[in-house]
């Protein structure tokens, strides 16, 4: 049986670029955040401030949403390293289409994000128990993370297809990652006392829509607002993926630093 090229590329992505330490850090960091930040903040933040549950119960869906960044960063970095070490050129000179390589990256992102979702729920188990998710809620969580992952992967791949310096790429990537997380509702909700400017910035951030939708899925309060949020996320994912695909059309395969 011949394995389709995209799947061969996905296997190669996992086998060749994801060393155990990287995987441990990528999943361990948000898991530790749930355990430490959740425990510590639960003791000082009242349940009223986080919608009735503990702070950990508020944080877990946020960290599930955060997996879209984890997945996106993984494939952004994979692509960058492939460019840096001429593997993009090597693979493009082989029996693959550029679209298949891009598809392989996206699929790697999705799989990584999916595993991340599972790890975050496992990390939250001792604190919030097994979340009572309906099939619709499970589907919504996975779909949201998938859209968010495609958005971040697309954004970073588009960026990586244009930049020629590792320093520039990783600086921008870290900057984006940091600000996207802090300027979202992953760690805290937007309330009536949130400064207007910050609220506007928060709602300009796709992670906010993902975190809010996943939180609603966890609490069984999915509504029209979440549909709008998914629409926004879907639109942004399409734009970012389009930018990445555009970047592949005339990708400069020359040496980069």
């Amino acid at each position, binding site marked *: 049986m*011949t*394995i389709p*090229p995209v799947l*061969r*590329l996905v*296997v*190669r992505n996992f*086998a*060749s*670029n994801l*060393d155990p330490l990287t995987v441990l850090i990528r999943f361990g960091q948000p898991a530790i955040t749930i355990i430490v930040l959740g425990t510590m903040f639960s003791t000082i933040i009242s349940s009223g401030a986080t919608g009735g549950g503990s702070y950990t119960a508020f944080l877990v869906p946020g960290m599930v949403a955060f997996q879209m960044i984890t997945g996106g960063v993984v494939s952004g970095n994979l692509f960058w*390293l492939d460019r840096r*070490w*001429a*593997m993009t*050129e*090597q*693979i*493009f*000179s*082989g*029996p*693959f*289409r550029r679209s298949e390589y891009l598809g392989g990256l996206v699929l790697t992102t999705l799989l990584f994000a999916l595993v991340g979702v599972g790890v975050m729920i496992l990390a939250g188990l001792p604190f919030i128990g097994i979340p009572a998710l309906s099939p619709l809620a499970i589907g919504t969580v996975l779909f949201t993370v998938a859209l968010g992952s495609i958005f971040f992967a697309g954004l970073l791949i588009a960026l990586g297809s244009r930049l020629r310096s590792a320093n520039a790429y990783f600086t921008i990537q870290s900057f984006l990652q940091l600000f996207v997380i802090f300027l979202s509702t992953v760690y805290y909700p937007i309330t009536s006392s949130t400064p207007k400017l910050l609220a506007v910035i928060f709602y300009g951030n796709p992670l906010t829509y993902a975190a809010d939708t996943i939180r609603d899925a966890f609490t069984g309060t999915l509504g029209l607002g979440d549909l709008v949020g998914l629409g926004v996320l879907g639109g942004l994912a399409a734009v970012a993926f389009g930018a990445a695909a555009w970047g592949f059309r005339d990708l400069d*395969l020359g*040496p980069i630093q």
Partner: protein
Amino acid sequence: MSSEVVLEALDLGHAYAPGRYAVRHLSLELHRGEVLGLLGRNGAGKTTTVRMFTTLLPPTEGTARILGMDIRTGGRALRARLGVVLQAESLDFVTVERNLTLYGFLWGVPREVAKSRAEEMIELFELEGARHRKPWALSGGERRRFQVARELMHDMEILFLDEPTVGLDAIARRRILAYLRGRSRDGLSMVFTTHILHEADLLCDRIAVMHQGRLRALASPGELKHRYAGAREVSMSFRQPLPTALHLELARALADRGASSPTVDPDPAGAGSSVRFRVEHAEELLPWLTRWVQLQGLELSRLSVEEATLEGAFLGLIGDLPDSGGESPGPRATEVRA
């Protein structure tokens, strides 16, 4: 080498910007089982040519058909029948052994075949000591050997090698060239770029010399040397001293036949004389020279002709040409069929 044409380029060219041609008017053929060398100075257009042939870079003018497919539209179906050893180091971050089997997997080589082929490559390219090391722990030569070995993990009909022997020691180089020569005898066609002219001489059936994006000559190494290696030194020693009259006669006759700077010295090894001169196409002069010696009743103790080298031919062909200043309006390629 068969007469079947597997690659045919016609007026192929690529301009990185309007008017900035890296390659222009490239027309050549490659036959099944043939090894074609691409020689030229840095920036001559060799890598651009390889990238066009391997569909990594679309030509901006002209056409090329490889294995019956147009390089613009052949896409994956075409690339599936090619192999490419890039000039740049291309590496995956797993051990050498895993790299080889993973690359085989990527190309759809069955697992068992990939495993046995990896063993073969590890032995052939002397990578046993590097088997469990990751690429960053390899020396430059090991990385290069590994890169060639990895490309040979899958089946192909044409192999493009862009400076595959850079950084290799003489023994490793010889070993790889011998292996490649064997593969070409089995029908694998190759396009091979290098700056080491001696290895091009050893491996290539024909050589295309490029300069500033244009093909300057396309011929067998022997023909290139014959046509462009320039004047070579011929030295001969006689068992007896050469009388002045004969010396003058010889000098005149040699000059008539294109030789320059004939000198006569006492033979340091004996009582005779030795004569040295420089001449192009020395082999054509030798029959006359030996006849003249016999006619004069002289006896030769030694006759040597400086070996023509590809380096000499390369320098003779493009050594005096300017190396910058954009596209040169030079002549079209001279093709000499061996």
